[in-house]
């Protein structure tokens, strides 16, 4: 079975690398997007199994991306896990309302983060 594809939408290269190392160590195939527009393009092109979305993106906030993903039928079923460095109190509720599968405040505890990904993809540990 080929590794499951995970689209990581993150504008910070260092963080992309860190997440990539974690995901590869867990036998996932990460692909990347650095902003909202290329994120939606990549999602339509690659049709990933899961999306990790940073809310603090340049040129449009993560909420907009999240909303777009949910309104495109081909993408609507893809689980999305949201990461944020900003004001988690209001963001959490809004994110989950928009249909995200998980919400993590940075810095993320990697064990919890991976557990959430496993759960969303139905992968037993």
């Amino acid at each position, binding site marked *: 079975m080929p590794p499951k594809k995970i689209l990581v939408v993150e504008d910070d290269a260092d963080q992309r690398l860190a997440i990539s190392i974690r995901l590869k160590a867990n036998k996932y195939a990460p692909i990347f997007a650095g902003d909202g527009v290329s994120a939606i393009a990549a999602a339509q092109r690659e049709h990933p199994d899961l999306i990790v979305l940073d809310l603090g993106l340049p040129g449009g906030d993560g909420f907009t991306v999240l909303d777009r993903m949910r309104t495109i039928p081909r993408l609507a079923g893809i689980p999305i896990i949201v990461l944020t460095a900003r004001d988690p109190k209001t963001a959490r509720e809004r994110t989950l309302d928009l249909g995200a599968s998980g919400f993590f405040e940075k*810095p993320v505890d990697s064990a919890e983060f991976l557990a959430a990904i496993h759960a969303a993809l139905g992968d037993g540990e």
Partner: protein
Amino acid sequence: MTRTGTAPVVLTVEDNPIARKVVRVALEAEGFTVLEAPDGRSALALVERELPDLILQDIKLPDINGVELIGRLRALPGAAAVPIIALTGYRSELEHARSAMAGFDEILFKPVDPSTLVRIVRAHLTPAPAAMRDGRTRKRVLLIDDDLVQLKLGTLHLTAAGFDVETARDGVEGLKAAGASVPDLIVSDVLMPRLDGFRLCSTLKRDPALQHIPVVLASSAFVGADDAKLAAEMGAEALVIRTPEHREIIAAVHDALRAPRPQIPVPDSPATEHYAERTWRQLEQQVRLNASLSQRLAQRRAELAVLSAAADALTANPSGTTLQDVLQQAFDACGVSRGAGYLVRPDGELELRALVGYDESARPAIETFFKKPAFLREALSAREPRIVVGAPADLDAVIVAPLRRGTESLGVFWMEVDTADASPEEWVPFAGAVATQLAQAIALSQAYADAAAGREASRREELRREQLQIKDQFLSHVSHELRTPLTVIHQFMTILLDGLAGTITPEQREYLGVALRNANELRTMIDDLLEATRSETARLSIAARPVHLSEVINDVIVAIDPSAVQKGVTVSADVSNELPDAQADPARLGQIITNLIGNAIKFTPPGGSIAVRARVPPEDHGVLEVSVADTGPGIKPEERERIFEYLYQGQNAANLTRRGFGIGLHLCRDLVMRHGGRIWVDGEPGRGSVFHFTLPVAPIGEPTHAA
């Protein structure tokens, strides 16, 4: 001083700068050239230098009495023919009469409306028609009145109406004068001692040499039909009411001269009984009328003057209205020359705020009311104005009046009153009226000042909020920016620790552990900073509900234990399950306990221990007390208050603490206080510190939630 063209020059002699300005503006607007003199001496100097076309003169001047001044002015070369108009506040009718005798061409009462003033000044500058100046065409009128005031007033009005006036002080004197000069007409008062108007009339009408002279009787009291009938029986042409303008008298005089009544036989005296009763009634009416009229008039003038002065001053400068301006206007309008006003300072002492009729050198004496400050203090607590008996210095008689607004004493003022023509008692209601108006003016000006201060305070508060918001935004931004690289540091250290980049040696693992622990500490500090800024602006919301303390404490210990283990510090809890629930926000409570235990770990050397306890203190069963004890260096007693301050750094941070307390403890105190509890620290220096905080016990009966 230059004369511009043919513009008439008017000199205004007036000590009140506001009144002076009003006159100047009014006249200059009409093309007059206006010279000003603030007192008698400068007026004399001016007139000596340059003869004006007309002089407007205040009766009350600081240096020279108005009546004296006109005499001295008239004596100057060329000045005898210059019209001099007196401007006077209401003093008394006697004052008026004195002024009339002094030779003023006209007497105006203040406040004079500017257009009237201009009209009158113009009239005096235009030469009178020749006929009016021709004495031979004038009718001679004998005016008989025992009241000096009425005599002078009558003279004034009849002269103004074009008659030559001769006067007599009572009926007997009047008969003599009539016999000597045989006037064209006699105007007589009714109520006079020795010989009243009715008897005078009947006597005249029975004298063949004088019976042709028409007699007009005048009365200040109400004239009834019976009175008029009696006058007619006595042979009088008319019995008329005497109004201040003498309009009715002058009309009756004209009528009588134009068409005299046919002569009738006259009884030698009125029917005695009937007559006595009528005379008494007239007398009573007159006394009543005079008293109430003069009081009403005085009060009305003062009220008007004070109100208009207050309104003017307030409009011009709402917060800077001075008692001086208002008091000066009031006194000026009512002819009071000297007095002072004092306001109550915040410390309760009276402060001299207005000085009228004195120069600055008198200030120290006036401040203490000529070393008798008790007068002022007594007046302040009084409800009504009172007469000061045995007035000090050279004062004639003094009335001291409190300035009150409701039950609040604002201050006090006193004024010197002239007792020559009115008893001090007559001035009391007048002083009361002035006091009422003054108090209102002061209250109004204070209200303006308060409103201005209020606006200023709210502006400052707004600015403070704005600054606070900017500060918080800045801190919030900075801490977010700090978080991002910290996240990366954290991620890569855990990647290394987890062996994702290859196997690491135990030594490498230990060092990475130290780095990670410090990175976590840094993150906690940044989180605290964020939280503290939020707490300052948005004020952290507390959603209190019954909470099991043991659960929250155990959760915190489980979460925090890894960093304690890493440092070699043990954390233990002794919290009974039997304790009542605390009324608290579980998330906030967790924050408080996390902060306290985190601090304790930070300051406790490896091998040390931290003990968390909770109890209901014996002295207060309404609260729960949580304490966190460590075996660190402890906190000096003098620092135990200050460590809860925002961004407080220990005085001796180098050896007492490794790092500053920052904001963690400040945040704890903020949260504890908003739960209604308190927080403090004790312990023995060198043997560790114990942090305590209290929370209210949850009300019984509310459902308990798991934390």
